[in-house]
């Protein structure tokens, strides 16, 4: 476990982990958005990799992926982007969010080496469930990377127990069925699920999928150790697209005030 994860684990805040898409709308914007997020109090960062077939993602992140693809962003460049983030002073853990096919094509070993060298802290593969992840799990430990596990309200109890006891970095609790995206309501029984996850997890439990307002976020404080916001932030980036390309300073300022409006008051 590296220092960045230690700091993440040791924090007593309600941990904020934003998701943004690499290369959306351009590489430099991704760097500045990442730094802005850290300045706004992010405890870790998920960096998505553009993919032609993102079957766990909703329309907002699909569109972000299309923008990233248009920039020729790919897995290798995303990993290398992390070393630039480190050069620019980013201190929080960075998790690469990539579909498995991209990993396979780059080569798992090549990816792991590159990731370790670039200051990546973890990897999250939404279409690589526990049952298929044995090899990658082992290789990640060898390279000081956390393979982030996801659990869902549909995950069976015995599996939840096992995932919790083996989890690295944080345990990603999917708040609702379906793909990523903004939601107005959450399912009944979600609290029980989060409670069970917390009980069984050796790492912080973060809730994600569908959170888009301060009110929604605050409702999970107590039942979880942190939260992930993806689509809401990516949607804001989409709104700011042209400014992020041509008038970046202004855009980053707007972005930061949006992030501040989103976060629970006490987590800043």
């Amino acid at each position, binding site marked *: 476990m590296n220092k960045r994860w230690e700091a993440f684990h040791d924090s007593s805040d309600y941990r904020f982990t934003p998701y943004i898409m690499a290369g959306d709308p351009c590489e430099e914007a991704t760097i500045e958005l990442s730094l802005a997020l850290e300045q706004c109090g992010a405890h870790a960062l998920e960096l998505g990799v553009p993919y032609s077939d993102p079957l766990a993602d909703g329309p907002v992140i699909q569109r972000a992926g299309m923008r990233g693809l248009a920039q020729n962003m790919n897995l290798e460049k995303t990993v290398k982007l992390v070393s630039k983030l480190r050069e620019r002073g980013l201190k929080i853990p960075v998790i690469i969010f990539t579909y*498995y096919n991209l990993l*396979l094509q780059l080569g798992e070993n090549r990816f792991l080496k590159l990731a370790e060298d670039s200051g990546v802290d973890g990897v999250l593969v939404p279409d690589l469930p526990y049952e298929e992840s044995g090899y990658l799990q082992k290789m990640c430990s060898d390279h000081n990377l956390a393979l982030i596990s996801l659990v869902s309200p*549909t995950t069976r109890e015995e599996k939840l127990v096992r995932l919790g006891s083996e989890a690295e970095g944080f345990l990603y609790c999917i708040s609702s069925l379906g793909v990523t995206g903004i939601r107005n309501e959450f399912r009944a029984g979600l609290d029980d699920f989060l409670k069970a996850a917390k009980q069984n997890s050796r790492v912080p439990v973060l809730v994600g999928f569908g959170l888009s307002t301060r009110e929604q976020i605050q409702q999970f404080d107590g039942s979880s150790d942190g939260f992930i916001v993806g689509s809401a932030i990516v949607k804001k980036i989409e709104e700011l697209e042209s400014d992020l390309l041509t008038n970046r300073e202004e855009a980053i300022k707007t972005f930061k005030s949006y992030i501040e409006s989103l976060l629970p008051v006490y987590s800043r």
Partner: protein
Amino acid sequence: GRYGVFGGKYVPETIMFALEELEAAFDEAIQDREFNELFQRELAIYSGRPTPLTKADRLSESNGGASIYLKREDLNHTGAHKINNAIGQALLAVRMGKKKIIAETGAGQHGVAAATVAAKYGLSCKVYMGKEDIRRQSLNVFRMKLLGAEVIEVTSGSQTLKDATNEAIREWVAAVEDTFYLIGSAVGPYPYPKMVKQFQQVIGYETESQFKEVQQGKLPDAVVACVGGGSNAIGMFAPFIEKDVPLYGVEAAGMGVETAQHAATLSKGSNGVIHGSLTKLLQTSEGQITEPYSISAGLDYPGIGPEHAYLHETKRVTYEAVTDEEALHALKLLCENEGILCALESAHAVAYSLKLAKNMRKDQQVVVCLSGRGDKDVHTLMDFEEGGNKDE
């Protein structure tokens, strides 16, 4: 859940329990004599099975060499082998107490089959279809609606089959608790490839016994089937894989495998994950899945069933690719010599079987799976004849 390195369940955690539940229900169902009898009975009295094995006398004679036999999946209800699998999965859905099915479709053939069984067994049905395909296949869209299905327009990605499948999976992830995902080909996460093979192997078993009956107990000298996702082929090959029968899978070479316009997944693809399964697929060096091309809407899929990837790697099955032009020529020959208008998909298998038969002895026999009828392709054929565009 593996065929060598291929197969697996590369899906979000949310639906893992559903795959387990499905596998358990499926394994139990196929052990149940009643379920199997029901399935066989529905195939017989609803879809008209057994489909005949027709000897193509005039075609064989004009071609020279071995005799060609046609396994007539085109005579099934709704016009193709697709219904075998749709009936099987729908019966399983009913057995599991599911009231909703979802399905993906490209040109609309599987969508029609899914909507058909949904109507027959009283299930609600949503069919995911790319916006581009909806535009091109308005007749099938209308048919699905007539059958009571809801057709959901998919506007993501390239707006075709690949994206419709992504979207169906997304919907399944969201509605997994009460929804049965009826996959149309021998693809997808395990146990789908196994299940689809199980429901399609009736093609091969019927063929074997029909062939033995007319050929005094001997086996065919070659068996040929087209391969998109590969469900008709895997069903046709099933009983022969363990026997000493040469098997040929025929992919779509489109404008030629040397061009970018083809769907020859095994000839030109590489290992990767698509729609929940590790298999061969057409992709960029960076892992972006590319849009395949074939004149036949049922073959232009960038992946292939994982068992085919395995049969290819182990060389048990020989996979060849046939161009648009060769397929069209074979379609016409079959039409003129046998009075059978086959699907463009099946025409690929016919084209290769003609090449194959030519170099075989007169006393040998090639069996081709005629996976579907060509009524659906008449517009495409007309446009091709007129040199027009492929879209209307």
